[in-house]
């Protein structure tokens, strides 16, 4: 669940911009809604992170939230058109009717402009309740500014309170597929363990019964064939092989739903591995039966067939073994990689602000203390600790939204 990682929630929401008539009456001027959204964004104060933004003294309204690490509004006018889908010249030559290069390819467009809102904030989990709580808090901290930006988003008129705002944003939420945070100073823990084992779910008796039936019935069918066609040893072997193959396919078909239930998610690798194992087993059986039918190893053609069958079987067994090991490792890594990293130590916003504050104060202290004797240095550091209280996250500290204090 990439929406949540390392103790931070990464919200991405796409909110359509627009009004019923396609325009807004802005004090008598008929104006495009997206124009007004951009206008609202351009007058929203930025965080005090550069000499020019520092000079006017206003701070970003997001700085009123002590949970928000980063927040962004972006207007997306449309999807970028990357040109037509490239065609393979050979396939065009073969199938000109369906791939005629003289006919325009599709060109996707958005039905309206969108406002992208993304924020990453301190959260205890990736639960929807955490998101809702943050959005409610944000509404109370900056309702006026949020209204100024969002009021030309589609259907925003129905938002009347904090809960309505939370519901509105959540409705436009899309999954954040690549969150980024970098607060593990000495490297994050490698492949964290899942909090709990996945629930295996109830046992699917239907497919399970089918599997057992096939395993029992297949040898019976073969024995019966043997008995019935004893006078035609040559092709009775082949027939038995075909019965074996049919049984294998039946096993495979029945096993897929079974495996899907046993694991926490239908694992493609696992299904393929099992399928390969069953097919190889069937082929081994066919090879064995064929060579038996040809009369063992005492005749030349049979010897060749025997040899080839052994080689074939050997390669197949090794291949299946490697595939099985790779599948198991892959499944392990894929499963572990979906587990969120735990929160890095001291990585919530108040701790980071305090760290930035202390870093600057300690630099001043180090410069002032150069060349001091042990006694003076000890006393000065005592004053440093008393003045700046490294253990107290609340104060003194750096204001949110400010690059230096």
């Amino acid at each position, binding site marked *: 669940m990439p929406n949540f990682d390392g103790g931070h929630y990464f919200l991405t929401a796409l909110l359509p911009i627009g009004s019923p008539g396609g325009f807004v009456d802005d004090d008598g001027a008929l104006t495009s809604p997206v124009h007004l959204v951009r206008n609202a964004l351009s007058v929203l104060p930025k965080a005090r992170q550069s*000499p020019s933004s520092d000079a006017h003294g206003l701070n970003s309204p997001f700085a009123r939230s002590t949970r928000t690490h980063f927040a962004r509004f972006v207007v997306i006018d449309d999807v970028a058109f990357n040109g037509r889908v490239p065609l393979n010249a050979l396939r065009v030559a073969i199938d000109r009717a369906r791939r005629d290069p003289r006919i325009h390819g599709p060109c996707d467009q958005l039905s309206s402009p969108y406002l992208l809102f993304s924020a990453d904030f301190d959260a205890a989990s990736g639960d929807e309740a955490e998101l809702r709580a943050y959005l409610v808090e944000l509404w109370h901290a900056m309702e006026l500014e949020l209204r100024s930006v969002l009021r030309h988003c589609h259907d925003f008129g129905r938002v009347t309170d904090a809960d309505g705002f939370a519901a509105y944003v959540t409705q436009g939420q899309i999954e954040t597929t690549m969150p980024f945070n970098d607060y593990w100073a000495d490297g994050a823990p490698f492949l964290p363990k899942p909090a709990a084992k996945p629930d295996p779910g109830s046992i699917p008796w239907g497919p399970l019964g089918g599997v057992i039936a096939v395993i029992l019935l297949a040898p019976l069918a073969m024995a019966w064939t043997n008995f019935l066609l004893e006078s035609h040893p040559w092709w009775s072997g082949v027939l038995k092989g075909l019965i074996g193959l049919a049984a294998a396919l039946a096993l495979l078909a029945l096993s897929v739903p079974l495996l899907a239930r046993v694991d926490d998610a239908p694992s493609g690798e696992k299904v393929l591995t099992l399928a390969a194992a069953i097919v190889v087993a069937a082929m081994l059986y066919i090879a064995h039966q064929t060579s038996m039918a040809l009369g063992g190893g005492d005749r030349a053609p049979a010897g060749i067939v025997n040899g080839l069958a052994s080689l074939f079987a050997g390669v197949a067994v090794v291949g299946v073994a490697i595939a099985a090991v790779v599948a198991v490792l892959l499944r392990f890594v894929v499963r572990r990689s979906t587990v969120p990293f735990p929160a890095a130590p001291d990585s919530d916003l108040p701790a980071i602000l305090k760290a930035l504050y202390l870093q600057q104060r300690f*630099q001043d202290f*180090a*410069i002032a203390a*150069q*060349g001091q004797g042990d006694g003076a240095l000890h006393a000065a550091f005592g004053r440093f600790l008393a003045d700046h209280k490294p253990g107290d996250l609340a104060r003194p500290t750096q204001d949110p939204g400010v690059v230096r204090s």
Partner: protein
Amino acid sequence: MSRNLDLADIQGGILRDYGESYPKGRYIFIQFGQASDGEGVEAIRRARDEARALVQALRAKVTSALRWESKAHQYPGDVSAQKPKVTFNVAFTFRGLHALGLPVRTLQRLPDEFIDGMAARASVLGDVGPNAPGRWDDAWRPGGPEVHGAVFMRAQMGNDGGAVPELEAETGWLVGLCRKHGATLVEGHGGAPYQDASALIERDAAGVPHPQAKEHFGFRDGISEVAFQGQGADLRVDGGGKIDGSGAWLPHALGEFLLGHPDESQELPPSAPPAALMRNGVFMAYRKLHQNVKAFNDYVAETARAYAAANGCTTDEAREILKAKMVGRWQDGVPLVAAPTLADRRAFWDRFNAGMADAEAWTSEAEASPADAGSQAAYESRRAEAWRPFVDFRYRDDPDGTHCPMTAHIRRVNTRDALDAQGNTSILNNRRRILRRGLPYGAAEPDATEEGEHGVVFLAYCASLFRQFEFIQQQWLNYGLDFNAGNDGCPILGNRQGDNAKFVIATDPASGAAPFICANMPQFVETRGGDYFFVPSMTALRMIAMGTVDPT
């Protein structure tokens, strides 16, 4: 197979500095006569033709890159030109090329920063506060006359320590030529009509003047020279070139310093049409840098007391050490990476002197039998070998900057192998090199105040001012992130912008000594003006003068 450079087509002073036999410089800036729209199409055409006629008269004088008889080591081509008393080179700003009537299709594809000009790039270059264009010399202050063209002259020195009389004669000729063609000199260079410059001169006991390779803070200057293809500088490649993946030194690509040739990205650099206009030409940043010699000396003296107290050395030693740590070289040019302590520096010079004595033995051999080319080559290679430790060093030997601080001047402007986290190549440095061709100006007597005229006329030649000159200025001189030093700027050239500017001198943690932080650094170097120029080839000068620049 590399091709020989067309030396007769390239302006002089680019491939190599004119060197110690031309210790005098004069930089003259010209505004072409212009007609306003109100004066009519005919007047505009006449003004443009006068400007072209001026270029036509100038181009006969221009000194090319052809070789003449000199002591210069390692120069391409055979001796084929007469050594002039005064060299003569020409360059244009964007506004100059516009006044000369170049077609729009050509002008619009010139680089953005060149079109902007230096004053408009102030925020990129860190020209704010005391460096701001509003405080530049009259000639460069925005709103004044426009600089269209530049004539750069270098002159030999007379016995009196001044320039040879030919410099005045050439200046008089140029002033007359400008008057004839309706052009004016852009005056106001610290009160002078043009910018004069001169190597610092020291007189021996007999009063004979000798030019010194030094600048006003007392540092030996111009030691590390870029070595590039076609320059004929094989012996300077070790230390002056680039370091490849196998750890070997190779010459830089020619296209980094001369347009129309492949560059370090193995492409031809972007160029305005027609190709012949840009080929064998180069861009140049002219920058007048005032040096606050008093502030520098006072700051070093005061900080040396604190450094001496913290490190247990004498204040004289502390002064030497502080200056060396700021630059990355001792004042005499010995690199800190090769000689981190004062004792190492003495040993360094002993090795150098022994190497030079070895080389000199081959000189006498060569004088005894002048026809013997082998002994001359042996002398050259031994001499280069003796000089090599001044330039042939790598920062991988000093990864934490305990010898040469991470933010020392030379470690910023030529990062060598320091930025390659994976190996030891100079790959992140190869596209950021510039050719420095400058001279000090004015005199800083020991009792000089900051108001005096003394500093460096700094010229940087490169294929892209944006990628090379401006990048070094913005990211490496006025910022420290590439060196893990946050906002810290260059201790010598960095702009201070009202912050508590600091400079960290790291120590080896194993030594138990604390690092030393130089704090509250005042502004040591201030920008007094400058602009961006295009230095055309002889072919391009002819096309410009004849009005045949055809981009179609």
